[in-house]
């Protein structure tokens, strides 16, 4: 069933063999095909991104208007996730909710990644007093449980999905900064960085050409992992009621709305919750495979 990657790659190799071009990507596809779980993870993530971008393509139901006669319908071919108290199609609400939840997640990770990476780079590369000052500050942020910090930030900024994104982002800056700094410190002490100085490279050139590219791998792996964590954090804050107000669909809020009827009608809570868990598992799997591939 699987294609032998080497035989496929052979013609490409005899030409001007440039790694990273066709030959490498073909091989990667071949390897991917041997890991069904990884493939399933990518499909899950891509489908959910599709929901967020163009929900209309995936469901014909409205997320807001329900058929009150069909309240609490169990999952069926017609309503894949069933319906809620107002007879709204839960699958449609989940699909539309992807937009809210994923945008917030993406924003949060971008904030944390952007600021954290730069801060970690500065600390690791400058060393000395700058490093000490930055790392003590990072200590403080790590000392406050991130959900608690996010709750405080949201309470100051006001309840909304954007602010949730901001809060979750801020509360995970510290972990990015720490990982980036550790990575920079490792790379800076590598022989090839010393060699770059020895060959006449200036500090900015060495930083941009060697230190940053080689430090980023771990941070990117962390970012992939953090997507999962951030989805959970965003949904948790939504569940606690700090996000978009009803009737807007948001995954955490969907679970919270169904919670009161869970004794009699469990699916309004459980279906969106399971989907959320699936997405997080998928991002973890992707992150792990990235880390394995880039481990030296």
């Amino acid at each position, binding site marked *: 069933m699987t294609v032998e990657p080497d035989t496929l790659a052979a013609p490409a190799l005899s030409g001007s063999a440039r790694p990273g071009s066709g030959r490498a990507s073909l091989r990667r596809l071949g390897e991917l095909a041997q890991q069904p779980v990884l493939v399933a993870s990518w499909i899950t993530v891509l489908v959910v991104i599709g929901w967020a971008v163009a929900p209309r393509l995936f469901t014909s139901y409205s997320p807001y208007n329900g058929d009150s006669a069909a309240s609490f319908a169990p999952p069926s071919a017609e309503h894949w996730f069933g319906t809620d108290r107002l007879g709204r199609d839960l699958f449609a609400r989940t699909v539309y909710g992807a937009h809210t939840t994923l945008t917030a997640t993406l924003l949060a990770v971008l904030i944390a990644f952007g600021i954290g990476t730069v801060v970690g780079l500065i600390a690791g590369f400058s060393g000395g007093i700058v490093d000490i000052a930055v790392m*003590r*500050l990072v*200590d*403080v942020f*790590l*000392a*406050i*449980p*991130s*959900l*608690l*910090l996010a*709750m*405080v*930030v*949201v*309470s*100051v900024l006001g309840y909304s999905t954007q602010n949730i994104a901001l809060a979750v982002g801020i509360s995970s800056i510290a972990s990015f900064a720490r990982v980036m700094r550790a990575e920079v410190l490792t790379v800076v002490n590598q022989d090839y960085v010393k060699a770059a100085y020895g060959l006449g490279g200036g500090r900015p050139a060495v930083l941009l050409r060697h230190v940053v590219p080689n430090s980023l791998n771990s941070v990117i792996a962390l970012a992939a992992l953090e997507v*999962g964590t951030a989805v*959970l954090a965003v*949904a*948790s804050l939504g*569940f*606690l*009621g700090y996000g978009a107000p009803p009737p807007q669909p948001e995954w*955490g809020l969907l*679970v*919270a709305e169904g*919670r009161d009827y*869970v*004794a009699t009608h*469990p699916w309004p*809570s*459980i279906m969106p*919750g*399971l989907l*959320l*868990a699936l997405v*997080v*598992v998928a991002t*973890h*799997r992707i992150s*792990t495979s990235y880390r394995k591939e880039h481990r030296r």
Partner: protein
Amino acid sequence: MLRYLALKVGRALFVVWAAFTLTFVLLFVLPANPVDLLFDPAELNTVTSEVREQAAESYGFNKPVLLQYLGRLGHALTGDFGNSVQSGRSVTATILDVLPSTFVLASGALLLALLIAFAIALIATSTRRAWVRNLVEALPSGAVSVPVFLSGILMLQVFSFQLGWFPAFGDRGAKSLVLPVITLAIPVSGPIAQLLVRSFATEFRSGYVTTSWAKGATRGVIVVRDVFRNASLPALTIAGITFGNLIAGSVITETVFARQGIGRMTQAAINTLDVPLVQGVVVLAAASFAVINLIVDLIYPLLDPRLRATLTVGSPRAA
């Protein structure tokens, strides 16, 4: 050794002070009009300016920021974080009221999480069957992926509503503790198990294990007598993360199971913008975190003879 101790204690104190300052800036300085936070948002329009000023004075908001800060810091040093806006009771007393309930929940969950994590790591290392290992190693990733509110609701649905084994809500008796403890233990066990699985595997491949094989030791003996101690030590390094997970998890667990505790109190305090209470909780969390890390820093060298040596003899420090 003394220097090491002083350094670590100093760091811990700094973290607590900085957490206090950070929350002060966030809660008392940043909001455009902190006095507004003292009132129920719905009634805000009906409050007269006279009442406002009175409130501002009684909370010290009319003083310069620096004076407010120093005053609050001075009181905080004596354990006084002011009074809760909602109840009017002292923050410290309010927190102490609900602390035991959360403490019982969190320590039970931590214990269970450790059991789960070690079981996973031991099975993954001891088994000779690849499929068992793969299956077991996939568990931690699942444990951290399932949102606490989902696992809580699933627990309720299955064990309370369907099977009726445990009460659904409330905090009376040991029986009502079972479901919340399990719910909280699952996400907490995840990162610990991931770390342990990795470090058990690393240690199992290390040179001294080969020596043990060559001595004639069997697999079980090696896992228990050689690998276990070396591989367990790193778990201490994520004690802080574990603590954070316990706090975050207890906020949601207490909400789902309608239990009394720090988590639910915090949520209520944030919902009602009970600023002094929120600050008290954050500083308490940071202080607990600092103390836990301090303890880890202090006992780690006792457990690892190599570190003990660097502390008493001195470690080479490259320039």
